[in-house]
C-alpha cells in the first residue's frame, strides 16, 4: 500500500480502483472505507457509473472499421509504399504514355483524396454485415447444458456427430501464450460427450473445416472463429480447400473476407488461386472483391503468382474488372495491376521474345 486511505484522498483512489489499477490490498481498503463512509461510498458509486457509461460507448473503431476492411486496405497500401521505397515496381514502368500509367495516376488520386476510397471502404464495410470482433466476446460465453463424458484426447468424430452439432455446441477459447484457441465441442447424438483440443489435433481440424463449410449449421461468429483458428495450418490441403470453398459459397461477406485473408499467406496452389480470382470476378460484395484484388496484386508483386501469359484467366478477369466493375476503386486498381503485369512480362521475356 502506498499511503493511508482517508476521505481526503479517497477520490483519486476510487478512480484508480475503477480503472483496475490497484493491487488487491488497496482494493480491499477502498471497499472497507466505502462500507463505513456514506460520502465516499457515493464517490465510488459515481466512478463505477462513469465506467459503465464509458463501457457502453460504441467505439468509433467498431463503426468505422466494422469488418476490418480499412485495416486490410491500410496494410496493402503500406506494403505497396514499402515496395515503392525499395524501388521495385517503379522500375517496371516503361512509358509515361501507356494507358496503365495514366490510370495508375488516377488511382493515386485516392491517396491524396483518401476520403473517396475510405468512404467506399466504409460503405462496403457496412454491407459486410457481421462484426468479426464480436466473436471474441461470444466465445467466452459458457455452453449451456451438462456434459456426460469429457474426452480430452479426441476420439474420432463421426459424420453423424458432426451433422448433429447444435449452433451453440462449439466453443473456441483463446489460450494465453498461444495463437491457437482451445476448441470445445459438445456432441449430443448418439451419445452425449464433450471433445476438447486444439487445431493441431487432426480431429479438431476436421471439425473446424466442416464448420467453415456449413454456413447454415453454424453461426457467423463460429465460422469466423474457425477460420482464424485454422489460419496457422492454412497450408494443409484440406484446410486450404475448405477455406477456398468458404470464399466461394459462404453467405456472409465477412466470412468470405476472412477466408481471403487467411488464404493470403498460402502458397500458389491452383485451387486457392482459382477461388481468389473467382471472388474478384463474381463476388457481389465490393469489399470482398477489393480484398481479392489486393491479394492478386500482392502475389504478383512478390512474384508468387505463377508467371501469367497474356491470355490467362487472371488477365481477362482484371480486364473485365477494369471495364465493368461497379466500384471505381476496383476499376482503377485493376488497370494499374494490368500495367504491372505487362511490364513484368516485358522484364522477363528475353529480347526477341513474343512481344515486339
Amino acid at each position: 500500500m502506498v499511503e493511508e486511505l482517508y476521505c481526503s484522498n479517497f477520490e483519486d483512489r476510487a478512480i484508480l480502483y475503477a480503472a483496475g489499477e490497484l493491487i488487491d490490498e488497496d482494493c480491499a481498503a477502498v471497499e472497507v472505507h466505502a462500507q463505513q463512509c456514506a460520502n465516499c461510498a457515493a464517490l465510488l458509486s459515481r466512478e463505477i457509473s462513469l465506467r459503465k457509461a464509458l463501457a457502453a460507448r460504441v467505439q468509433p473503431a467498431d463503426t468505422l472499421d466494422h469488418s476490418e476492411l480499412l485495416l486490410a486496405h491500410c496494410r496493402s497500401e503500406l506494403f505497396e509504399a514499402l515496395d515503392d521505397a525499395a524501388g521495385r515496381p517503379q522500375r517496371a514502368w516503361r512509358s509515361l504514355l501507356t494507358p496503365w500509367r495514366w490510370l495508375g495516376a488516377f488511382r493515386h488520386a485516392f491517396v491524396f483524396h483518401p476520403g473517396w476510397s475510405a468512404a467506399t471502404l466504409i460503405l462496403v464495410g457496412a454491407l459486410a454485415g457481421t462484426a468479426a470482433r464480436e466473436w471474441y466476446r461470444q466465445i467466452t460465453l459458457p455452453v449451456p447444458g451438462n456434459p456426460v463424458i469429457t474426452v480430452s484426447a479426441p476420439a474420432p468424430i463421426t459424420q453423424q456427430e458432426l451433422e448433429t452439432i447444435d449452433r451453440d455446441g462449439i466453443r473456441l477459447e483463446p489460450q494465453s501464450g498461444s495463437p491457437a484457441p482451445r476448441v470445445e465441442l459438445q456432441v449430443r447424438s448418439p451419445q452425449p460427450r464433450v471433445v476438447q483440443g486444439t487445431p493441431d489435433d487432426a480431429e479438431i481440424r476436421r471439425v473446424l473445416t466442416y464448420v467453415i463449410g456449413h454456413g447454415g449449421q453454424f453461426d457467423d461468429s463460429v465460422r469466423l472463429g474457425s477460420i482464424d483458428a485454422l489460419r496457422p495450418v492454412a497450408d494443409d490441403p484440406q484446410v486450404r480447400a475448405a477455406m477456398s470453398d468458404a470464399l466461394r459459397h459462404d453467405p456472409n461477406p465477412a466470412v468470405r473476407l476472412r477466408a481471403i485473408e487467411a488464404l493470403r499467406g498460402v502458397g500458389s496452389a491452383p485451387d486457392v488461386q482459382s477461388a481468389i480470382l473467382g471472388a474478384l470476378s463474381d463476388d457481389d460484395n465490393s469489399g470482398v472483391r477489393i480484398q481479392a484484388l489486393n491479394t492478386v496484386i500482392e502475389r504478383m508483386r512478390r512474384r508468387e503468382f505463377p508467371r501469367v501469359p497474356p491470355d490467362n484467366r487472371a488477365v481477362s478477369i482484371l480486364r473485365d474488372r477494369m471495364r465493368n466493375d461497379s466500384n471505381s476503386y476496383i476499376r482503377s486498381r485493376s488497370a494499374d495491376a494490368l500495367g504491372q503485369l505487362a511490364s513484368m512480362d516485358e522484364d522477363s521475356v528475353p529480347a526477341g521474345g513474343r512481344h515486339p
Partner: protein
Amino acid sequence: MPSEVIVGSPPFEALPNPGTTAIASPGSAALPAKDDRTLIERAQAGDRSAFELLVQRYDRQVLRLALNVLGSAEDARDVYQEAFLKIYRNLHRFRFECAFYTWIYRIVTNICLDHLRRRHSHPEEQPPLLRAASFEENRDGDFFDRQQGSGAHSDPERQVLGHEIGRRVEAALQSLSPRERMVFEMRHYQGMKLRAIGEALGTTEETVKNSLFRATRKLRTQLEGLR
C-alpha cells in the same frame, strides 16, 4: 447515482473493466513478446516478410487507437501509414531497451497527438463525430439502420444505451486535452497499464496518473446526470 451498486461486496469483484472486454492489451497479445525478438532481428537485417509479420501483429491495435481517438477513417489511415513507414525507416535504431510495442506506441502516440493538437488549436477543423459514417449517410441514408441491425450491436439494451449516451460520451471525450485523451484511450479502451502508457508517452507513471485524474474529473462533470 445508483447507490445500490456498492451495497455488499460481490459487485466490487464483478466490476466490469471496459478496457478489456474485447481487446487484449498489446503487451498481453496472443503472441509472446519473445517471438518479437527474432522477427525484429530478421527485419533489421532487411527481411521484408519478417517486417510484414511484425506489422500484422500490432497494426490492428494501432488502427483501433487512431480510429477511436481521431474518429475519422481518413485521419486514422494517415496515422497508420505515417507510423509504420516511420517504424520501418527507424527499425535499425531499435535496441531492445524496451518492449517493441512500447517503442511502436511511442511513435504512434506522437503522431496521434500531433493530429489532436492541430485540431485542438484549430477547432474549426474538428471533424464532426464519426465523419466517415456521416459521409456514407449522405450517399446511403440507412447506414445507421444497417449498423444497428448487424451482429455487433444487436443486444437491444446495449443498443439503446449506446445510442442514447454515445453522443454525449463522444462530446465529453473531445473536451479532454490531447494528452488526456490519449491517456484515457490507452487505459480504458486499449487496456494498457499506466506504467506502460508512461513509457509510450515518454513520461512517468505519476504524470500519467495525474492526467487520468484530470480526464476522469472532466468527464464526470460533462456526463453528470447520466446513468
